[in-house]
C-alpha cells in the first residue's frame, strides 16, 4: 500500500510502547491542541481512550484564559473529612440549606481493593457553560479574563433555567441573596483580594483538591492535564459543557 509516496508494506509496525517519550508527547500535544481537548474536553483516559477523546474534542471559545483557573481532584486522596465544605461555607457565607461544593460517596463492594471512594464536586466552570447560554438576563456569565463562571446577583430573575441546565448540580437558589448562587473559585472572597488559592483547596489536609492555572506550565494542574502517564478524566463529558475540573487517582 502506497500513500503519499510512502510504501507502507515495507515499513515495520511500531508499537506505541516503542515510541520515545518525546515522540509520544509531540504527537499527543499536536492532537490535543488541534481538538482543544486541553481546554477541558472528554479526557477519559489519555492513553487508552485517546482516539475517543480526540473524537469528542472540545470547542472552547477561548483557550487558554490567562490565568485559566481550574481544579484537579485526586479522588483517592479525599477522606471525607468535610473541612473543605466547612471552609467554603465560612468563606462564602453559604446557608445551611445550600452548598457550593459537596463530597459524593461511591461504594464498590465487589472491588478487590478499596471498597469506597469519595468524590469532591463543585462548579466545573465549563468552557461552554449551559447555564450561561440559558440565562435570560446575563445574570450568570463567563469571565473573559479568568474563565470563571460568575454571578451578578441583582440581575437574577430566579427562573432557575441555569439550575436545570447544569450537568453537575452545582447551583442552588439562595433566599438571602434572592439569586441563584454557585462556586466562583472564591473569586469574590479570596482571588480578587490577592489570595492565590480557593478556601476548599487550602483547607484540604490531604491535598485532594489542587487549584491552579491551566495556562501556566509550572502549575500542577497544567502538568497533570498535559501528561499521558496517568489517567485524567472529567465528569459527564458527553454533556458537551467542556469542564475545567479534572479528576485523577494516584
Amino acid at each position, binding site marked *: 500500500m502506497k500513500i503519499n509516496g510512502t510504501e507502507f508494506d515495507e515499513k515495520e509496525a511500531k508499537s506505541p510502547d516503542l515510541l520515545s517519550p518525546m515522540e509520544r508527547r509531540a504527537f499527543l500535544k499536536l492532537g490535543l491542541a488541534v481538538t482543544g481537548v486541553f481546554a477541558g474536553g472528554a479526557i477519559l483516559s489519555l492513553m487508552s481512550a485517546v482516539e475517543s477523546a480526540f473524537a469528542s474534542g472540545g470547542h472552547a471559545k477561548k483557550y487558554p484564559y490567562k490565568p485559566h483557573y481550574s481544579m484537579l481532584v485526586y479522588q483517592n486522596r479525599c477522606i471525607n473529612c468535610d473541612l473543605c465544605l466547612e471552609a467554603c461555607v465560612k468563606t462564602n457565607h453559604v446557608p445551611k440549606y445550600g452548598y457550593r461544593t459537596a463530597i*459524593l460517596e461511591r461504594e464498590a463492594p465487589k472491588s478487590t481493593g478499596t471498597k469506597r471512594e469519595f468524590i469532591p464536586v463543585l462548579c466545573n466552570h465549563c468552557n461552554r457553560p449551559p447555564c450561561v447560554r440559558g*440565562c435570560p*438576563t446575563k445574570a450568570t456569565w463567563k469571565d473573559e479574563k479568568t474563565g470563571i463562571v460568575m454571578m451578578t446577583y441583582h*440581575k437574577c430573575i430566579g427562573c432557575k433555567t441555569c439550575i436545570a*441546565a447544569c450537568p453537575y448540580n452545582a447551583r442552588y437558589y439562595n433566599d438571602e441573596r*434572592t439569586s441563584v448562587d454557585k462556586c466562583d473559585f472564591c473569586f469574590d472572597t479570596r482571588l480578587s483580594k490577592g489570595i492565590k488559592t480557593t478556601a476548599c483547596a487550602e483547607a484540604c489536609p490531604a491535598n485532594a483538591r489542587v487549584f491552579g492555572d491551566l495556562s501556566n506550565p509550572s502549575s500542577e494542574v497544567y502538568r497533570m492535564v498535559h501528561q499521558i502517564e496517568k489517567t485524567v478524566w472529567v465528569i*459527564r463529558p458527553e454533556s458537551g459543557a467542556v469542564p475545567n475540573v479534572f479528576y485523577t487517582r494516584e
Partner: protein
Amino acid sequence: MADNLTKATNATTDIRLLWAWQTIANRLSGVGKGYYAWLAISSALLVTGVAAGIHAFVVGYSHLYNCTREVPWGILISTYVFFVVTSTGLCLVSSIGHVFGSKDFMPIAKRSVYLSILTIVAGFLVIGLEIESPHRMALYNVISPNLTSNIWWMGTLYGAYLMFMAVEFACLQFDRHKLAMYAGFLGVVSGVAAHSNLGAVFGMLTARPLWYGPYMPIYFIASAMMSGCAAIILFTWLASKVNREPIRGEMAKAVDLTRQLGILMICVIMFFQTWKIITGLVGGELERETFLTLLTGQYAFNFWTFEVLAGMVIPLSLYILSRGTNMKMLFWGSLSMIFGIFFMRYDLVVVGQVVPTQFEMGVNEYASLLAYTPSPHEILVVLAGFGLVGAFFLLGEKIFAAHRVEEHAEEVHAEKLTVLETAEKTE
C-alpha cells in the same frame, strides 16, 4: 364653535360609554343561576390561587413550594407550558379560517382568539407566581438581554404574541377583518416562534436526556395543534350550554373539521411519542432510566392512564365514533384529552428531572429517583390559572355576545339603537 364641538364630542363619548356599560349589564343580567354559580366558583379559584401565590412569594417560595435544587421546575412550570401550548394551539387552529382564508373554520375564530388570549394570560399568571423575582425580569430582559437564551426569546416573543392577539381580537370586534388578518398572521408567526423557543428551553439542555435534541420544538408545535383542537371543541360545547344555543349549521361544520384535524394531530403525537420512546430506550444509562421511570416506574400510572388512555386513546375513539355529529361524545373526548394533556406536560417537566444528572456516577447520593410532589400552595396557583380561564370565558360569552360572527354586526346595531333611545328619553 370649538367649545360646541368639544361638548358634542364629549356627549358622543358619554353616550358610547353609557351604551357600552348598559350593553354589558344587559348581557350579564337575566342569565341562569348555574352561570352565576360557575362564575363564582371560577372567580373564587382565581382569587384564592393568587392569594396563595402572593403568600408564597412573601414567605419565600422555598418554604411553601416543593421544588428543590435537584428538581427546580415543578407543577407551576408544567402548568405554564400547558396553558401556553393551549394558547398557541387555539391561535394556530383558528388562524386556518380568519388568517389563511378557509371559510369553514370562520365560526370558531372569534372565540378561539379570545380564548388564546385568556390561556396565555393564565400561563403568565402561573409563571409570574413561580419566578422568584419577576420585577427584575421587566428591567433586565430589556437592558441586559442574552440573545442565546431561549427563555429570553420565549418571553419576548410571547409578549409580542399577546399584543398581536389582542389587536386581532379588537379588530374582529369592530369588524375590521383585513387588519385582523394581518394581526392574526403576525400572531401566528410570533406564536410559532415563541412556542418552538419554549420547546428549545427544554431541548437545548444537554444535561437532560429526556429533553435534549430537536424533538422538543417540533413536538411542542404539533402538540399545540392537538391541544388547540380539544380546547376549541370543549369550549364551543360549553358555550352552547352557557348560551343555550345548540351547535348547528356552520358552527357544527367547523366543529367537525376541528375534530378531523384533532384526529390527525392525535395520530401525529402518537407517532412522535412512539419513536421518542423507542430511541430513548436504546440511549445512555441516564436516558434509559428516565424512559423506564415513565414506562414502568414511578410515573407509569401517569403515563399509561392519563397520557395514553385519557389523553390519546379515549379522545381518538370518541372523535371517530362521534362521526362529527354527536356533540356530547366530542365534548367528553375533548375534556378527556385536555385532562390527559395536563399530565403530559407534568410528566414531561417532572420526569425530565427526577433521574439525577449524576446518576451514572454510581454515587450513593444519586442512586435513586428524586422526589417531587406539588405542595398545596402550588396546586392553588394552578387552580388560579383554571379559574382565570373559566371566569373570563363565562364573562366573555355574555360580554361579547357569544362571539357570533355573522349576526354580530346586526345585533350590535340593534342594541345601540335601544341605548340611544333610552338616553334620549332620559334627557
